[in-house]
């Protein structure tokens, strides 16, 4: 089995190394390395998946030893089971399609080889994250995918917004990862091991309080990575990155790592109980919160970004109510339709020469038939219309919420579903239908994307359309739930007879209601271009301002920290900074004054500080006696 595992990370890694060292020479041929490396990884992953699926064979074992220190051992353990096999397929499969798409999208970019180097590095890291068999390795690649994401968001670094967004993503993620790291350490201290199988076997012995602390700390990391409240702010800004990156990292794979981690560690969350409730509520609140912001955004990628945050919220709600398989299933279908939405959006942006504002689109359906069709498939899927994939997975989550007695979660989820249908069809109606609001320049530029971009769209559209077959309710749960059962037990309470179809009907009605509302507002009587997106009331302003979370953080954390830092610098360094810094430039003129200040003030200041320290040390020692 090992021979089916190691090539999956090794191939993209080899691709990365080749691109790093020979990228310049390869230039515009860089995809000849990147695409096959990820493609082959997908083939191997498929083979591994089939082994797991057909024979039920799984593998856990060390690839090599990493840290051994006395009683502390952290080998590079990989684990291939039903859960990681599904994730691997998504990562390498969607990854492969997006690599192909990027050939067209990034064509002619000066950083072409660099782009593919980062992208394959990401695939490697993500594969390792999924394969990791212990928490330390998980943490390592958790950080690594964050780094790749940061590099790719800031890929177009000449745009200051891109560089800032990259930095923001990294820092916000560090806040979450701070919790994650503490959780891992606490776990090690409590159990003395970080291996999945050992941890999960011993988790029931943990005191509830400890388990809750560990689970919540881990979940803090998940909140950062998966952009859940209150750490969601980085994801919309991350849209500054190239669109394939948004599709792969910020929609389909990396941001779902949090969901994967919670599902993987569900034993710990269950042990705590409270933590699982927290996951469910944070998830569903995020779902509603982000969906409501999505209602009024005008940037096509930002709408999709808020939609992603919202859908991730649904996944957390799913795992939070104990429907792990449903959460993972939604993760998979979401990977299909959201990647498709992003890639189709990228196709539009490509066609319009960089235009991202839906107020300046309209009537694109005639000129971009393939893009429109595929986008429509994805939109129907995310809105939750049967028989498309999104319907089954979302319905599964809502049904589980209902069945487990989380009626509040169910109600909020239903409302969020209505929002979802509304915002996505608002986007569809404004962008593809109705009168054209394009400016002349863009209209002339308008063209359907090349096949290298549209073919991946087609594949994803097919998957979005038929992905529902895994979620058809059967006698013993859905097929995917049955498949994942060895890892993720689905002991969820059964619905009463007839409740299932009733809930489905309600969900469909809600989605149709949302679509109808969007149709009434934006298509039946087209709104004049200049009135689109103009806030009409306070709520609208609040939503447009994204609830002003960024501003709040800026005032609460960023500005005080900078102020403290500057204060310290001034008090402790009394003019030396600018003194010595500028002194090098205009030496003669400044040195007399600078040196005097330095010489009169500082040696004395420094010695004074030392004496203060000495007195305090002695005082404490003598007092302690």
């Amino acid at each position, binding site marked *: 089995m090992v021979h089916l595992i190691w090539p999956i990370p090794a191939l993209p890694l080899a691709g990365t190394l080749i691109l790093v060292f020979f990228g310049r020479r390869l230039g515009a041929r860089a995809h000849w390395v990147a695409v096959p490396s990820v493609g082959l990884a997908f083939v191997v992953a498929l083979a591994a998946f089939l082994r797991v699926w057909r024979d039920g064979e799984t593998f856990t074992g060390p690839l090599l030893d990493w840290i051994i220190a006395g009683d502390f051992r952290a080998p590079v353990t990989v684990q291939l089971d039903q859960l990681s096999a599904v994730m691997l397929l998504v990562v390498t499969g969607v990854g492969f399609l997006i690599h192909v798409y990027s050939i067209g999208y990034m064509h002619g970019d000066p950083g072409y080889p660099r782009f593919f180097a980062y992208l394959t590095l990401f695939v490697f890291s993500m594969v390792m994250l999924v394969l990791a068999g212990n928490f330390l390795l998980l943490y390592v690649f958790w950080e690594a995918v964050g780094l790749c994401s940061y590099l790719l968001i800031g890929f177009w670094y000449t745009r200051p917004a891109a560089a800032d967004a990259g930095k923001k993503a990294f820092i916000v993620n560090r806040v979450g990862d701070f919790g994650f790291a503490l959780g891992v350490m606490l776990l090690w201290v409590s159990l003395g091991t970080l291996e999945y199988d050992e941890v999960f076997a011993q988790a029931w012995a943990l005191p509830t309080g400890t388990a809750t602390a560990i689970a919540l700390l881990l979940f803090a990391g998940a909140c950062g990575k998966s952009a859940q409240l209150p750490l969601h702010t980085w994801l919309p800004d991350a849209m500054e990155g190239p669109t394939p990156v948004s599709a792969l990292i910020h929609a389909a794979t990396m941001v779902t790592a949090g969901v994967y981690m919670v599902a993987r560690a569900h034993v710990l969350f269950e042990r705590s109980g409270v933590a699982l409730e927290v996951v469910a509520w944070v998830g569903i609140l995020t779902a509603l919160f982000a969906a409501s912001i999505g209602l009024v955004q005008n940037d096509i990628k930002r709408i999709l970004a808020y939609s992603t945050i919202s859908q991730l919220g649904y996944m957390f709600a799913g795992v939070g109510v104990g429907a792990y398989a449903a959460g993972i299933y939604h993760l998979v279908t979401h990977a299909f339709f959201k990647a498709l939405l992003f890639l189709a959006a990228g196709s539009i942006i490509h066609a319009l020469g960089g235009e991202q504002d839906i107020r300046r689109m309209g009537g694109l359906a005639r000129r971009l038939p393939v893009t429109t069709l595929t986008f429509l498939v994805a939109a129907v899927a995310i809105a939750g219309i049967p028989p498309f994939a999104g319907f089954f997975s979302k319905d599964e989550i809502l049904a589980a919420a209902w069945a487990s007695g989380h009626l509040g979660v169910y109600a909020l989820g239903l409302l969020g579903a209505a929002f979802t249908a509304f915002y996505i069809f608002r986007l569809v109606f404004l962008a593809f239908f109705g009168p054209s609001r394009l400016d002349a320049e863009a209209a002339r530029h308008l063209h359907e994307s090349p096949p290298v971009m549209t073919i991946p769209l087609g594949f994803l559209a097919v998957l979005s359309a038929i992905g529902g077959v895994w979620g058809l309710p059967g006698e013993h749960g859905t097929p995917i739930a049955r498949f994942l059962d060895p890892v993720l037990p689905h002991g969820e309470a059964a619905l009463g007879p007839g409740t299932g179809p009733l809930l489905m009907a309600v969900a469909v009605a809600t989605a149709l209601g949302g679509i109808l509302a969007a149709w009434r507002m934006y298509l039946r009587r087209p709104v004049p271009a200049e009135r689109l997106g103009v806030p009409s009331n306070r709520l609208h302003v609040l939503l447009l301002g994204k609830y002003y979370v960024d501003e709040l953080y800026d005032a609460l954390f960023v500005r005080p920290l900078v102020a403290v830092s500057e204060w310290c610098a001034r008090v402790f360094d009394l003019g030396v900074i600018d003194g010595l810094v500028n002194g090098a430039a205009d*030496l*003669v003129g400044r040195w*007399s004054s600078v*040196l005097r200040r330095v*010489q009169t003030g500082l*040696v*004395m200041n420094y*010695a004074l500080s030392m004496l203060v320290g000495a007195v305090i040390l002695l005082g404490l020692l003598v007092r302690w006696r």
Partner: protein
Amino acid sequence: MVPVGYYTTLSAVLFTIGVVGVLVRRNPLVIFMSIELMLNAANLAFVAFGREAGQLDGQVIVFFVMTVAAAEVAVGLAIIVAIFRARQRINVDDLNLMRW
């Protein structure tokens, strides 16, 4: 007989005067001399404590400290001379106007 505590108390007083000297003076040479005063006070403490314990070790340590002090003076004065020299090139008036 003078109790050893008197010697050590005296050494503490001298040490503190040296510390204060480092803090209140502006001339590097005087600061440096104050530091010598501190070392000297430490030496006195060593000898007094050695006397109390009836050992010669305290005295031997003082011998080493003296050597170290001599080495320190050589280096320290070289640094001070060097800085004065370099600054002379910038501005001769600086030399006497410069305050510590």
